[in-house]
């Protein structure tokens, strides 16, 4: 995709914003923060667009790489774009209704439980789980994104699975 103008970038947002939002939510465990981080990721992506070299048919791996960096220090990223985020118009759809709020809260709690389950993992293992299992990136894309060999992606994923197997067998292991 050519990113020569903001309109092309708008198409990129339209195509991949949900995936970036989901990644942000699973990374931070906070749906509202994930919405703001989605904007921040695309601000950063636009700023870095000259670095974009599509190594696959999709720009999503590159965007998730930006998201990975942004969410690594979410507070700092949000502060950087605070003034811009303050200009985001308030939601006007049903997401502001009571039912939607309850649904939102339920999802938030489920997300918190899922992230809690990741606590036994190292940060490096969490990165691989988030990218490969939860965001469905290929091993190759995850390896390129993280700057590690593909074999390391496999070994980290295997390590994460072993830890979860140990937890399942012996819940006191952590």
């Amino acid at each position: 995709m050519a990113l020569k103008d903001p309109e092309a970038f708008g198409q990129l947002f339209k195509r991949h914003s949900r995936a970036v939002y989901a990644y942000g939510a699973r990374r931070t465990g906070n749906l509202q923060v994930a919405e703001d981080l989605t904007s921040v990721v695309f601000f950063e992506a636009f700023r870095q667009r000259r670095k974009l070299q599509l190594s696959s048919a999709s720009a999503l791996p590159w965007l998730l790489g930006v998201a990975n960096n942004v969410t690594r220090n979410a507070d700092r990223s949000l502060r950087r774009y605070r003034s811009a985020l303050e200009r985001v118009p308030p939601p006007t759809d049903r997401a502001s209704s009571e039912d939607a709020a309850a649904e939102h809260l339920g999802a938030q709690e489920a997300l918190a439980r899922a992230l809690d389950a990741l606590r036994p993992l190292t940060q490096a293992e969490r990165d691989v789980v988030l990218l490969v299992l939860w965001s469905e990136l290929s091993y190759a894309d995850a390896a390129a994104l993280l700057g590690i060999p593909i074999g390391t992606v496999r070994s980290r994923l295997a390590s994460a699975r072993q830890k979860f197997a140990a937890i399942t067998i012996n819940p006191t292991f952590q």
Partner: protein
Amino acid sequence: MHDLGVPPIPYLSDARLLARQEHLMAEIGDRRRHRQRRRFALGGIGLTASGVAAALVVLVGIGTPSAFAAWTASPTTPASGQVAAAETACAARPTNPPPGVPTLSSTPSLTDTRGPFTLLLFGANTTSQGALMCMSGPDGTQFSIASGSQPALPGPGQITLDRLQGASANGQDYTIAEGSTGSEVSATTLVLSDGTQVTTTIGNGLFLAWWPGSATVTSATMTTPSGTTTQAIDSPTIDTGGSGATSSSGGSSPGNGNEPHTASQTAELQRFCAQLKAEGVHGPNGQAIGPCASLAP
């Protein structure tokens, strides 16, 4: 919950995403307008006697301490997406050359890649009044160059060095050579004044090369069907900005940018300089550059 299953994420409505997208577009538009004023620093500019063709060097986003560490003396095969990314980045440059000079969004006449650097040449043929060059490298490094009209074509098996343009990036000089190839020339290597041999990229009757530093060209080796020949090059002085377009060894468009202009040429120059000023293009110390410095404020 002790499994690695994917935690569900509530569906984000189209309305919420659209609001974010529109906000993003508005913010990007504002940021681009502000950034354009900050990002440009000028290396040099000059106008030829025609008053239309110009030599312009724009340095953008220079930020690496060893800007040319990855340069190679021979062209390299571009990485996947490298040329497309360069074309995209160059097309986004707000450079606004005078009428007749091609724009950065037109189809390149020639593309030279050396490691991570991509140099695009626009125009520089008999149908255009000028040429425009844009280089993009790692970390957003970019420079754009517009230069004067194309001189006469060389004879069979010969080349003419039409332009030798110098500038600096992050305090490091570099030089771009652009010229024409005669018929039968299938490859050419430039021999520089410091002994370095630089293989050019050729195509469409043109050649293109660049190198770190400010060495000039002393000779060239051409490959033709009848073998390899060497040609002495009367290298033009490197134009480092403010001294006008480079003249060619056999060129027909000399000029140092200081010749008197007609009223229409002056008006053209004023329009061009006003555009540069609006885009934040200026000399290293903020002064107007090249012939723009001679214009009344």
